[in-house]
């Protein structure tokens, strides 16, 4: 009885990490070239952008909300940065600031729709998603943006992606090996650290968790519930725009078709994060590990020659297993007798 209980506790807490370690070990043995610094960095790089978005959506999940607009905020940020650089010929700095402000603004509108207009979170952010997908196509009449493109007015766009802008998407730092760690990976880790500190170590994060667990009790304990809910969506908007900027800097053009999978991948990472360390709730560390987990699995399978079209199937499978971990196991152990 006791040992059985201990086993369940153990598997809730460390099951997912054990699974991750097992995967790494498995691929290291059976997929040649999987073990190694460059391969590890590749995994990090492949999940950096979705990971950053997932960290934002984690904040909205913490206040018991949801942000479906993150994917479209990211692609809007991608298109907007390209438009500012190529067509308006602005500096990299101006383009970055403008995109971040755009993300924050969209988050603010999402938050106000939910808090003030009482639109349910899923519907408000779904509406915003559609709105942005449409809006980002308007200035260029639905075409991608690249240097030398012909504008609707007949002129040719002369602006270029400056090197300083491309640096944030493409530069690699030398660490032990030459040109090892790309900037987006660093940014991912920094964003993860900041969100982790915010959620776990500050009173703001603590209050956001309180709102997510019992909004009424939090409000009666003097928490400004509306403020924190809006803040969560603003954070989500900003992180999504960071993701879009990194994508833009990596591609070097405003590709209208890229970023389709961003929403689902990042939501999956955040939900997988519930299972890490038995948290059973959204958390920054879990989200980052969740993103890595998907990255490891996909990279490993690719190296073992699994066809690309199985990727979504694999991601879905991981997500379902993680959700079972979270909800079936933890709820049974917490409720005990009832």
């Amino acid at each position: 009885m006791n040992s059985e209980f201990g086993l369940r506790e153990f598997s809730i807490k460390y099951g997912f990490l054990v699974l991750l370690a097992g995967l790494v070990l498995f691929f290291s043995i059976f997929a040649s070239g999987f073990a190694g610094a460059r391969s590890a960095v590749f995994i990090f790089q492949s999940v950096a952008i979705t990971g950053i978005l997932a960290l934002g959506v984690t904040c909205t999940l913490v206040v018991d909300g949801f942000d479906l607009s993150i994917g479209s905020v990211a692609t809007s940020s991608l298109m907007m940065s390209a438009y500012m650089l190529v067509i308006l010929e602005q500096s990299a700095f101006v383009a970055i600031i403008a995109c971040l402000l755009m993300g924050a603004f969209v988050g603010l509108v999402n938050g106000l729709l939910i808090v003030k207009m009482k639109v349910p979170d899923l519907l408000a952010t779904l509406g915003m998603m559609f709105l942005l997908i449409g809006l980002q196509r308007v200035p260029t009449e639905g075409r991608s943006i690249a240097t030398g493109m012909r504008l609707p007015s007949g002129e040719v766009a002369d602006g270029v992606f400056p090197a300083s802008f491309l640096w944030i998407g493409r530069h690699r730092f030398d660490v032990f090996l030459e040109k090892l760690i790309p900037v987006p990976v660093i940014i991912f880790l920094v964003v993860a650290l900041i969100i982790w500190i915010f959620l776990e170590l500050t009173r703001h994060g603590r209050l956001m968790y309180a709102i997510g667990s019992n909004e009424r009790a939090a409000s009666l304990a003097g928490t400004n519930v509306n403020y924190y809910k809006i803040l969560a969506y603003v954070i989500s908007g900003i992180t999504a725009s960071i993701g879009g900027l990194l994508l833009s800097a990596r591609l070097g053009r405003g590709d209208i078709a890229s970023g389709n999978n961003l929403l689902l991948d990042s939501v999956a990472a955040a939900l997988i994060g519930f299972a890490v360390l038995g948290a059973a709730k959204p958390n920054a560390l879990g989200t980052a590990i969740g993103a890595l987990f998907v990255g490891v699995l996909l990279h490993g399978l690719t190296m073992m020659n699994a066809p690309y079209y199985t990727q979504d199937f694999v991601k879905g499978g991981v997500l379902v297993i993680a959700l079972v971990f979270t909800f079936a196991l933890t709820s049974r152990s917490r409720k005990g007798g009832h």
Partner: protein
Amino acid sequence: MKKLACEIRGLEKAFGPNKVLRKIDLDLFPGEVTVLMGANGAGKSTLVKILCGVHKSDGGSINLFGKLFRPKKPVDAFNEGVVTVHQSINDGVVPDLDVASNLMLDRLTDKKSGFFVSEKNLRIESEKIAEIMGLSFDSKKPVSELGVADRQLIAIARAMARNPKVLILDEPTSSLSAKEADRLFKLLDRLRSTNVAILYISHRMSDIRQIADKIICMRDGSISGTFDEKPLDYEGAVTAMIGHKMTEVNFKISEKGREILKLSSLKLDGDSADINLKIHQNEVVAITGLLGSGKTQLASILFGVMKQFSGSIFLNGNKYSPSNPMEAINLGVHMSPKDRSSNAVIKDFDIEKNLTVPFLNNYSWLSLLKFKGLKNVAKETINDLGIVCQSENDEIETLSGGNQQKVVVGRWLLRPCSLLVLDEPFQGVDIKARRDIGNYIRETSINRATIVFVAELDEALEIADRVLVMNEKKIVGEHKNKNVDINQILVEIAGQSTFSELSR
């Protein structure tokens, strides 16, 4: 001897270790209104839920017209003719459908009715019901456009449409005005004459006086009094419900300090009387009264959750009108709300996090939490209040009700305040926890004013220097807690008119 409609014998129910019903015996006769009274947590709702098939009993039997009645799910109860109108109105109506569809909802769910809805038949049938009930709504109007009272009447009318043999009404007048309630009573009179057995749960003495044929009181899961001899002994019923087994508590009445809180001509509602009240430093004041007497409303106004209808509040001599709890806390008013599970307990948090949630500001530096300070203050409070736990990091849900209550009351004692408001601080706790909480509140009561809202009189007498009685949203009595005349307080709780009726 009339034939029994419903005979309940030795009914038992427990949730985990918590015994909610202890061998209940209850008889319902056709053509009789039986009023069931009981404080929060006395077990009324559990009893109702067993009767209408939501919960299963652990022991005992229910006989319906001589036949064993064991509903497994709500539909079973309906089919046997036991119909319940629940307190929460929105359980009884579908707001987006029109009046006719709402009245006929059960016909729609009946498997025997066809696949297609005949709009015409629906209207004809529903108008029949509406007529019997004396309802005069446009049957095409969506229910969402109707007021709360009309919705309540529709929910009741819907219950009528099932031709009940036993009708259970759970606080049906809690959202009705006196006039609307009269309509309901007329309806009940008509039902009574058609031999329906009615179980009526309420605390409004005015209702009870009008319609009760019999009063049953519940307390702590058992029947504490049955009153069926005319004239009904209303005061006895109130006594049986709230109890006043005097428990000797020794404490000195505190020296009054300066005035902290003043309410001047405060009206809770448009049609309620003025409340004028002064509360002083060092003083513990208990405000007692039945459910619905306005206690929680007053507490919510003091904490900025609600606004008063008119009149003003002064705190430390300054006008006080907080627009939300945050402002109230900043002005030095703390409130522990009633119903801990929905209003206070943050169930994903451990004890320490639950204790400290209102005052994280005081335990952080540049927004970064000082974990050591939080841990220490949590440990102190656990010690002071005698919270039984392994450590401050136990999940709140692993604690017993009494210990959870200690946590959610204790969180407001973490920091000093000028006014502490406690709404039902002893709700759902055992006697030991009640003593611990009461003692701690008294020990710390120096330098602040304390108001405790309680429905049970002995809780008030255990803790307060002064006991105020509320009835129908006004203060109807004030007593220094020294050689109090308990009968007088009971009379006041039950409403002044009871007194005149009794002495008549």
